[in-house]
């Protein structure tokens, strides 16, 4: 089919050898691309029990069938590997030039394995793959690395993807940066890259991406562009960006506050919410191939960090470095965002880790003697910025922070695990699950740990018809949301257009047909999603994960929320168990969470 080439670029950093790998057509048809293709490849090629930071781990950079076309939001790529944060499946998404250039070179993705003897970077172009020494950039931050490589290679338009010092030092939630402010943020993919001594990838292709019916594609875009301009939702998103989410989560009582102790924070309003960020904007930005720009570029307007510019902060950063740390000064959050992006840290995990450390400090579980003198208190922006530098460079107490909240809690002991806000080792994102029970289920069963990308249950529970504090029907609801996002992440398009233009599965089937020439239906998509999600489950089962890991922190299960609309709510073990039982049943998995033979057969996985 058009749109995909069925070719992967395989690079072994240990031997320095490269080869092409052919992907059979039935795999492309059965898994589409992106997450789906990665699930099939990782399951088939990564030996069980592989240590994530060993040379044997595999690092996939994958595109989708719509990548490199004018389909809105199609400049995404996914990094797939075994996570050093969770020891489980990991898919982490970003956008930029890398996937487009890969497609122009005639590849659907690349696989990096082995480990280079010395720090290196990859230059990939029509002449082939060149493994080059990275002495001049090792130790540099991602912004500087981007600049130096574009200069060195004499190509300001090349796609550059890199890690910062956090990835080099194997921080377990290090990210991979693209286009300065775009990150494959979650799960520690940057540490896997660092463990391979791979600092960066510079990529440039000169070919074309073939599309079946360009006229139809243009017509679909014209129609959806008009819809977006008439949609109140799209117009709100384009004006305020993701910070508007903060007003909604605050109103619904699910805004993470003080390390997930509370669900609302009045002080956030007009300071670090949609209005606060809007006042600091200096421009707007869209991803490549997107006609609904939703990123605000902001500049710190006052104080010590006045003049600092960032693309963002997005909602997740505002919640994790704002309300979750009781910091209501936007310039400090902008500075935290810039530091995380340049040093190569996931802002969600980093903010969550700092919130956890602040609560440990407040409760007297850690003292300045253990933090190299850092008094890490809620509300202290300077302390949070110092902690970012320490964790990225594993300096002093930063070596503990860089391990993530699960490992920190084990090291600190004294009951700290009761408020270590993670699932499977991955830190919670910016939605308090006690105010939207579907989020609790979604976090618990997520194969990559607490995840906001697989499903957004508040869309149904705060902004829809589902009662938020009940369990009835939540398993089916979460499965439906998972399956739709699975298709978006396998076609590899942005989540947002589907929500705010909105674009339906039928719309994406039209785009798929225009690009590939293949007819597909919504039902086909959803069958494929079921196959992919079950295969990912099988990967985790093979890695030794069980139902025991599909759980939530003590706080979420047992401590009633003390404030806001969801005051008095907690999930409770019984409620969680019921939702999990029902979710497994919806998926065709047994009560231990293992896919049954009948299910595997039905999904053509046997």
């Amino acid at each position, binding site marked *: 089919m058009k749109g995909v080439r069925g070719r992967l670029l395989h690079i072994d950093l240990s031997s320095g050898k490269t080869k092409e790998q052919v992907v059979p057509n039935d795999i492309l048809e059965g898994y589409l691309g992106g997450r789906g293709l990665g699930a099939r490849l990782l399951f088939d090629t990564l030996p069980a029990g592989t240590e994530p930071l060993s040379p044997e781990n595999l690092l996939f950079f994958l595109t989708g069938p719509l990548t490199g076309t004018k389909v809105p939001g199609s400049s995404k790529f996914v990094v797939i590997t075994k996570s050093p944060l969770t020891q489980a499946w990991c898919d982490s998404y970003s956008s930029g030039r890398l996937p487009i250039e890969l497609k122009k070179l005639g590849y659907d993705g690349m696989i990096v394995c082995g480990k280079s003897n010395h720090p290196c970077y990859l230059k990939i172009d029509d002449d082939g793959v060149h493994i080059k020494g990275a002495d001049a950039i090792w130790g540099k931050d991602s912004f500087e690395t981007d600049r130096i490589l574009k200069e060195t290679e004499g190509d300001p338009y090349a796609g550059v993807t890199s890690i910062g010092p956090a990835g080099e030092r194997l921080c377990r939630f290090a990210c991979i940066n693209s286009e300065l402010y775009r990150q494959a943020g979650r799960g520690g993919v940057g540490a896997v890259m660092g463990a391979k001594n791979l600092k960066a990838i510079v990529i440039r292709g000169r070919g074309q991406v073939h599309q079946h019916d360009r006229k139809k594609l243009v017509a679909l875009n014209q129609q959806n562009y008009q819809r977006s301009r008439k949609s109140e939702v799209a117009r709100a998103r384009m004006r305020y960006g993701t910070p508007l*989410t903060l007003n*909604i989560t605050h109103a619904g009582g699910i805004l993470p506050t003080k390390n997930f102790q509370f669900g609302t924070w009045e002080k956030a*309003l007009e300071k670090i919410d949609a209005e606060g960020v809007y006042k600091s904007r200096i421009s707007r930005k869209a991803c490549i191939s997107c006609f609904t720009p939703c990123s605000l570029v902001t500049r710190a307007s006052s104080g010590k960090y006045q003049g600092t510019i960032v693309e963002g902060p997005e909602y*997740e950063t505002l919640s994790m470095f704002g309300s979750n740390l009781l910091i209501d000064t936007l310039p400090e959050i902008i500075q935290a965002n810039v530091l995380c992006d340049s040093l190569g840290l996931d802002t969600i995990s980093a903010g969550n880790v700092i919130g956890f450390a602040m609560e440990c400090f407040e409760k007297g579980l850690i003292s300045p003697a253990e933090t190299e003198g850092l008094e890490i208190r809620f509300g202290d922006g300077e302390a949070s910025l110092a902690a970012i530098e320490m964790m990225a460079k594993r300096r002093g107490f930063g070596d503990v922070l860089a391990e993530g909240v699960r490992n920190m809690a084990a090291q600190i002991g004294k009951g700290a695990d009761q408020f270590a806000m993670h699932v499977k080792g991955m830190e919670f994102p910016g939605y308090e699950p006690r105010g939207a029970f579907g989020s609790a289920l979604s976090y618990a069963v997520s194969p990559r740990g607490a995840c906001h990308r697989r499903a957004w249950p508040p869309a149904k529970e705060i902004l829809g018809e589902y009662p938020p504090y009940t369990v009835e029907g939540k398993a089916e609801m979460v499965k439906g949301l998972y399956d739709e996002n699975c298709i978006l992440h396998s076609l590899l398009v942005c989540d947002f257009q589907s929500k705010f233009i909105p674009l339906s599965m039928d719309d994406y089937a039209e785009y798929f047909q225009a690009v590939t020439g293949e007819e597909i239906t919504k039902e086909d998509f959803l069958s494929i999603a079921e196959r992919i999600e079950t295969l990912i489950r099988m990967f985790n089962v093979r890695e030794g994960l069980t139902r025991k890991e599909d759980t939530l922190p003590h706080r979420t299960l047992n401590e009633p929320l003390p404030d806001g609309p969801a005051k008095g709510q907690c999930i409770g073990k019984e409620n969680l168990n019921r939702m999990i039982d029902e979710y497994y049943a919806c998926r065709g998995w047994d009560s231990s969470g293992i896919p049954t033979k009948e299910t595997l057969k039905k999904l053509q996985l046997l």
Partner: protein
Amino acid sequence: MHLKISVLGPDIALREKTDLDLASPTLREVVKALLEQDRAKWERVLQEDCTPSERYEVLVNGRNMKSLEALDTKIEEGDEIVFTVPLVGG
């Protein structure tokens, strides 16, 4: 009665204090009163039949009216009502 009303859409209005001459009204009666008070302001968000315009959701004290009694939801003194586009994620 005094209510706190917010609109979260392409133009934000946060927690405007609104006085309405109503006693123990339903949400429908509140919406009707808002339209009567300032039709130009509210016609983008609310329709003549008192339902929210396409793609707006209504939260009463953080709960979607759809999971309460819809437009028959009882409104009390000091309640917070949010008219919002359905946007989450970030």
